[in-house]
């Protein structure tokens, strides 16, 4: 009897290990940070895109209005795709769109806005990408929906039809 316990135990252990690894095969090995919402926005200082004046984050996000912070760059292809959604959102009265120009060349960025139109109420530059880290972002494009200095939704990647209607619903 005693001799039998060990092989049975071994089989059970290996089955459990096999099961765990088998399950793990289906998991994506690309990690995306947990999407924490309801967190306070970071405070930072940045240069306004056109005038190059220094502005503070609490001069940008004021009061209880909805803000959509969009991190973009002229070299980023998905940013072109989501541009039409930003244009649509910019026509809405109750949401302000703030652009964060990420590691970009000023002339290229300006041409991008001239060519595709400017949906942003205000743009600030993030030349070394450190402000993006303050937001907990790691690439472009990324968008944050903000109300009362709180991030209520974080969007990694370009906006699409589904996310667009979701934002519309949230800001109703």
């Amino acid at each position, binding site marked *: 009897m005693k001799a039998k316990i060990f092989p049975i135990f071994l089989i059970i252990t290996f089955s459990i290990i096999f099961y765990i690894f088998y399950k793990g095969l289906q998991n994506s*090995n690309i990690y995306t*940070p947990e999407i924490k919402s309801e967190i306070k926005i970071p405070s930072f200082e940045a240069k306004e895109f056109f005038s190059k004046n220094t502005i503070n984050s609490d001069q940008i996000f004021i009061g209880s209005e909805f803000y959509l912070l969009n991190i973009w760059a002229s070299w980023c292809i998905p940013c072109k795709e989501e541009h039409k959604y930003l244009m649509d959102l910019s026509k809405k009265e109750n949401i302000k769109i703030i652009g964060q120009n990420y590691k970009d060349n000023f002339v290229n960025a300006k041409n991008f806005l001239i060519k595709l139109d400017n949906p942003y109420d205000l743009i600030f530059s993030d030349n*070394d*990408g450190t402000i993006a*880290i303050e937001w*907990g972002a790691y*690439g472009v494009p990324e968008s944050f929906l903000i109300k009362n200095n709180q991030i209520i939704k974080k969007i990694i990647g370009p906006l699409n039809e589904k996310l667009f209607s979701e934002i519309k619903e949230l800001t109703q």
Partner: protein
Amino acid sequence: MNILKLLITVIFLINFYSSDLKAKNLGTEITKNLRCLICQGQSVYDSDSEFANSLKILVEKKLDDGLNEKQIYDYLKNKYGDWILYDPGFNKNTYFLWLLPILMFVFGGAIILRKVILKKKKL
């Protein structure tokens, strides 16, 4: 001949030692312990992605602001989660990770001990 070999060895060792000294900078130490989220599997220090380069600048900035190593790790953990650290802290998500080697060690030890005791009994 032997003296020449010895000399070359000594010169090599000194070179290794001095190259190691240069790398002993707190900023690089920290970025070596951070995982790059864009090219996963590389540390921020090794990576040359946009994200990693910004993070290197940010770490230097935070060090200039007077934050210590632990504060910087906490700051980044707060933003990106445990995943960004190569040395994750002890919390409910990592109990299994940290305790598994100890459990295996204890279990293995128990098996060996049993065998030894059984052998002694037979003798």
